[in-house]
């Protein structure tokens, strides 16, 4: 949660599947590093999965969104569908040519590849929709 309305990097939400494989953990590491670098802020996918209203509504309302799934099983994507949140800025790590395995010794080059793909995905992602029309963004 941001205590300041217009904190730097506050407008892009980063969500990772953080699953139990190399690609799941790559999604987590990339989300952490992108947050540290000020690109955006990692948020809790589990809160959306639990359908807690603050998390679900925040994912609907945020202007910039990057959702990183490790593999084509698509757990993060399924969570969005279940919670009724339109999926934007979606990235699957195995689509980048990184093979899924159970080796948790992450490769630095692969982390960088995921981070670059996340940045690119965010730049081409449409902004969050506002069905009601009139609401204005906090930092607009």
């Amino acid at each position, binding site marked *: *949660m*941001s*205590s*300041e*309305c*217009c904190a730097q990097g*506050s*407008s892009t*939400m980063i969500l990772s599947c953080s699953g139990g494989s190399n690609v799941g953990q790559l999604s987590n590491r990339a989300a952490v590093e992108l947050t540290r670098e000020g690109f955006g*802020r990692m*948020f*809790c996918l589990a*809160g959306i999965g639990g359908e*807690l*209203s*603050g*998390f*679900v*509504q*925040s*994912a609907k*309302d*945020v*202007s910039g969104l990057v959702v990183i799934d490790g593999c084509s099983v698509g757990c993060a994507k399924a969570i969005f569908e279940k919670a009724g949140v339109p999926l934007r800025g979606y990235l699957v790590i195995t689509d980048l040519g990184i093979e899924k395995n159970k080796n948790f010794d992450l490769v630095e080059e692969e982390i960088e590849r995921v981070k670059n793909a996340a940045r690119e995905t965010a730049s081409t992602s449409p902004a969050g929709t*506002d069905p*009601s*029309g*009139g*609401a*204005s*963004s*906090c*930092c607009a």
Partner: protein
Amino acid sequence: MDIKVLGPGCAKCKQTEKVVAEAVAETGVDAHIEKVGNPLDIAKFGIFATPGVVVDGKVKISGKVPTIDQVKTWISEAN
């Protein structure tokens, strides 16, 4: 009805408080409006950005100032 406005006191948060108060006044609903400004208390609602509005325990908006019509709709849904 319980309405909470979440925000540390930025301009948009104050604007949200005003919009909520106007919507409540226009609908005439019996509502208690509470301003929540403590970051630790705001964090309990799991929102990504302020301002936020919570109606009867459910977060209705995060990181945006609602319109009066939006707030009226939330009030109507909760009644």
